[in-house]
């Protein structure tokens, strides 16, 4: 059974028709990549899941665990969706620069009441990204881009999501840092968090993900396993720079 299912979602932003009937599924435990050019609607797809934008037509269904019942979250408020176990790490990091590193992590756990588990999750995030502990009293605005990305991922993990939505974690980072971040994503996934990843870096996305979707101008045009897509002629031309 699928963890997340988007059924024929149509989304307008202002007057612009952005998602023209998007359907996709994410299964429990997977890493799924969503790739496509700028303006294809990848970010909108994520914010439709997390409740920041609303579909005019279509449904978003979520099942936190394989044995729970499926819930319709199409109209749920963003804060309710976080509570159900979906955490959205937004594009361009968007850490709170007025808050220090520790506060950024704590605010990720805003809805949680289990103080002791929050402390142990802070330890866990700091094991994944040790630099965050060293910088914990610094204002997040003073971190480097890579550190901010780690903080943004750490913050998203602090709500203990079942499903993590990641919007372009490689954006503007040095290749070496991207490697590190992708390794961490693999670890996070191995520890039980399902990941839906939006990426421009198609090659890395296909390597990491079990399955992937390709988006073009508001529609899903291709889907398959990472390997299949990496070998697909059209994908190779459009996204992997093959000639």
């Amino acid at each position, binding site marked *: 059974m699928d963890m997340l299912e988007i059924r024929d979602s149509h989304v307008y932003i202002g007057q612009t028709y952005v998602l023209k009937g998007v359907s996709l599924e994410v299964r429990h435990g997977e890493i799924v990549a969503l790739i496509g050019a700028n303006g294809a609607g990848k970010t909108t797809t994520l914010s439709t899941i997390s409740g920041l934008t609303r579909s005019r037509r279509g449904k978003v269904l979520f099942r936190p665990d394989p044995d729970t019942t499926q819930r319709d979250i199409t109209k749920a*408020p963003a804060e309710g969706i976080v509570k159900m176990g979906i955490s959205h790490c937004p594009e361009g990091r968007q850490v709170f620069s007025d808050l220090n590193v520790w506060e950024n992590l704590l605010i990720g756990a805003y809805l949680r009441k289990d103080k002791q588990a929050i402390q142990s999750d802070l330890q866990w995030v700091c094991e994944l990204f040790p630099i965050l502990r060293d910088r914990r009293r610094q204002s997040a605005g003073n971190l480097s881009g890579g550190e901010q990305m780690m903080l943004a991922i750490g913050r998203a993990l602090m709500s203990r999501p079942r499903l993590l939505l990641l919007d372009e974690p490689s954006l503007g980072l040095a290749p070496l840092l991207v490697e590190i971040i992708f390794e961490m994503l693999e670890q996070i996934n191995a520890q039980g968090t399902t990941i839906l990843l939006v990426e421009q870096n198609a090659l890395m996305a296909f390597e990491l993900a079990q399955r992937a979707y390709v988006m073009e101008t508001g529609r899903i045009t291709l889907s398959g396993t990472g390997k299949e897509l990496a070998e697909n002629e059209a994908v190779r031309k459009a996204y992997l720079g093959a000639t």
Partner: protein
Amino acid sequence: MDGYIAQQLVNGLILGSMYALVAIGFTMIYGIIRLINFAHGDIVMIGAFMTLGLVISGKISFPVIIILVFIGGALMGILIERAAFRPMRGAPQVTGFITSLAISILLQNLGILLLTAQPRNFFCPDYLQTIYHLGPVSLRAIDLGIVVTAVVLMIFLVLLVRFTRLGMAMRATAENLNVARLMGININHTIMLAFAIGSGLAGVAGMMWGGKYGQIDPLLGFVPGLKAFVAAVIGGVGSIPGAMLGSYLLGFGEVLFVGLLPPIYSSYRDAFVFTTLILILLVLPNGLLGRKTELKA
């Protein structure tokens, strides 16, 4: 002469304290939803009349009145936010600005309708009128009360914003509304809280305004509203410490301008205020403590 200057500085402190209580709410509301709330000054007026009502109605002690007026102002702020500003959420900034002007006119005229435009004497119990002499400086008990109350309230506010979970949520919401929602913060609650605290402080400022000047009328909110706006902009609108700093600078500046120059210049007091504002904005467009980059401007 030294005594004279000391006296003026004390007067500036008193004036700055009152401005600060109004400016804090102004800057909080702007910080969180980028709304320039021109109705904020009218909460000062409502606070003043609430105080008068409570003083006339019975023997309630002043500390209790402070709490009641704070709550009354807060409720008024919540009411205005729910009725007028929430439906405008997401509309262009100028819509909110015009809405706030409309609310301001509505409150002033409602005041005139219900209370008449006739200024009323503000009762102040005798013990608050006692004059103390500290060396060359003399001040009334109420002046002391104004400064102490304002400082205590500001300390509470800073502690709340810096060190509590709620304060963290407010700072996060002020910085980025959408990402705050992704953290699970109910931004409607946070915005309401900013209105409640800001308006509560403005209500208390109204109480002080009445006590200081002795007369109140339904249009009295205009001046504190405008001065708080200037103070908030000088300090860097959106920044709470900035609003405090701006208010005290404005208070000292006004008093010293009037106190140190020959009396014929004293009617240029407000001209001085706005010239200072323009000069500061020319050098520091974001105010003294404002953020360097304002993305949502």
